[in-house]
């Protein structure tokens, strides 16, 4: 299957992804513990298999990296909505 990049549409980098969040004041050590648990779970072979059937690829990240990723995604969606002239509801 050719990728969009290969077909000439450069910079199209959109994925659907799933994440876990907690209320803002959750203690950092608890967040880290949850993060480690989730990262370990998605790396388990049988969970990987289950995810593969759904078309989900695990991409474990630390909380900081995930925060960075979410922020970049928010910007991406802002740009798209602006560029496509979509009226916010």
């Amino acid at each position, binding site marked *: *299957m*050719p*990728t*969009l990049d*290969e*077909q*000439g*549409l450069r910079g*199209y980098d*959109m*994925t*659907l*992804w*799933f*994440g*876990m*969040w*907690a*209320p*803002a*004041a*959750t*203690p*950092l*050590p*608890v*967040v880290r*513990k*949850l*993060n480690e*648990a*989730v*990262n370990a*779970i*998605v790396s*388990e072979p049988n*969970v990987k298999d289950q*995810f593969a059937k*759904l*078309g*989900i*690829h*695990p*991409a*474990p990240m630390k*909380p900081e990296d*995930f*925060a*960075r*990723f*979410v*922020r970049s*995604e*928010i910007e*991406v*969606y*802002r740009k798209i*909505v602006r560029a496509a002239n979509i009226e*916010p*509801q």
Partner: protein
Amino acid sequence: MARALQGSGTARRRAERRARRQGRGRCVCSITRVFMRCRSSARRRSRSTSTRPARRHGKRVQALGGAKNHAVVLPDADLEFAADALIGAAYGSAGERCMAISAVVAVGAAGDQLVSLLKQKGRSDQDRPGRQGRRRHGAARHRRAPQQGPGFRRTRARPKARKSWSTAARSGMKEGFFLGTTLFDHVKPEMEVYKNEIFGPVLVVLRVKTLEEAIALVNSQSLRQRHGDLHRVGRRGAPLPERDPGRHGRHQRADPGAGRVLLVRRLEELAVRRPARARHGRRSSSTRAPRSSPRAGRTRTRRRPASTCLLWDDDENTCFRYSLCSSPAQVIAQEYPTKTIKIVIPLTPGSGADIAGRIIAARMSEHWKQPVIIENRPGAGGQIGTSAVIKSEPDGYTLLVQSSSHAANPAIYKSLPYDPLKDTVDVAILGKTPYVMVTAASGPYKDLKSADRSGEEAAGRAPVRVRRHRHLDAPRGRVRDRHGRAEDDPRAVQGLARRDPGRARRPQHLLHGADQRRHEPGEGRQAHRPRRLDPHARRGARRTCRRSTSRGCAATT
């Protein structure tokens, strides 16, 4: 104030002794539910007057008699924090019941600064009855309340202790509330004000030089409470860590039989950042954002060493967290999870996030031996469920699993009831799903360019759709049928419903070469089964499936 405290003590004690001799008791209440049995520390008087007659009537009562709970404040404690916690513990319940903490043992250099902070924070002009607007400490000691505190007057007669202040007898409160927050400094163990329980907002400060001295002092106090109404976080029977003198500030084990000692200490290694201005009264965690992100720079942060309040009970070998104090994050994290975790999924059951969340939840539950439950709260693009999580207790027992719409919502909605950057903390990513672009194998579009061209020609009627699998319950979007009618166009809806009631279940229906095919009247559902689909493009470098295609696409694969 002296007048206020009259009429207590001796006479009643004598009456009670007489009553006991005669086998009568003062039945204090008729509670059928057991709260807590009185243990060793409470006064014998309290036990006999409360529990014995109650037992005779087939009832059991909570009889926590006299109590003098101690807080030991060490020199390395965050004194600001300790003072705040003590103000709440000593004056918070306004003298109408036993104070959570009524004696402070200040160790070494902690004393002077702590007392000055207590004075500053506790002396409040806001001591007034509840009906008179905002107040901080609550109404202190109403005249009608039964007086306790035998010997308190005698303390006043022997003023060795320095009374630091008392916000007593304010004008306009003569008939009502007359004893405000009161602090006694430099109290010695032999003083009556220390030896007796005082039902009132009275805090005594004792000064000692070392922690050992403090523990010995607490042990010698006959009124120290051993079994109280305290919030337990540690598992019962969980072993205490051994005393480790090398790691000063972590765990300090009290001498055997010390009862409870509240240790207010500073945990150096645990620095919690708090924003200068808390939103909704909570700590924001967006401050954890990388500096490079545009929002992070805006939130001013200040580092504040977190303190912890631990209660050791050697009798029961249990670790307690003192409920009035702020959460000791490290301790919570060590224990976490101790109860059911709820994962809120703001989407319908069967959606991608739901399936992924359920897989994770099942494994988390197995891993931690704690139930992990899923609650679907769909609606408003996930806003309803997300808001519910944000409003819940930030203790890690309510979590949110969402798709990337969490990041898309700020762009899509004019006003969100929350800010995904500030009101949530990003915990983990479960996984990514690439989008795949598909068309019918029989269709004319063999690659992206041809589809694009056709799209320009047909202006909105291009049969190539980029979409992910939609759930059957998903709200109707602007998906167009093969006539270019929007889904919410009544004609289109009727048409779709008549021809293919399961359309939403099969998004491929829209792709199956509708441009070439016409549904003949009377065609069965069989005819609607999508033909082979040609994947035209997908994102990313990895290619997971190589499909042999019947026509066209072979060249590009």
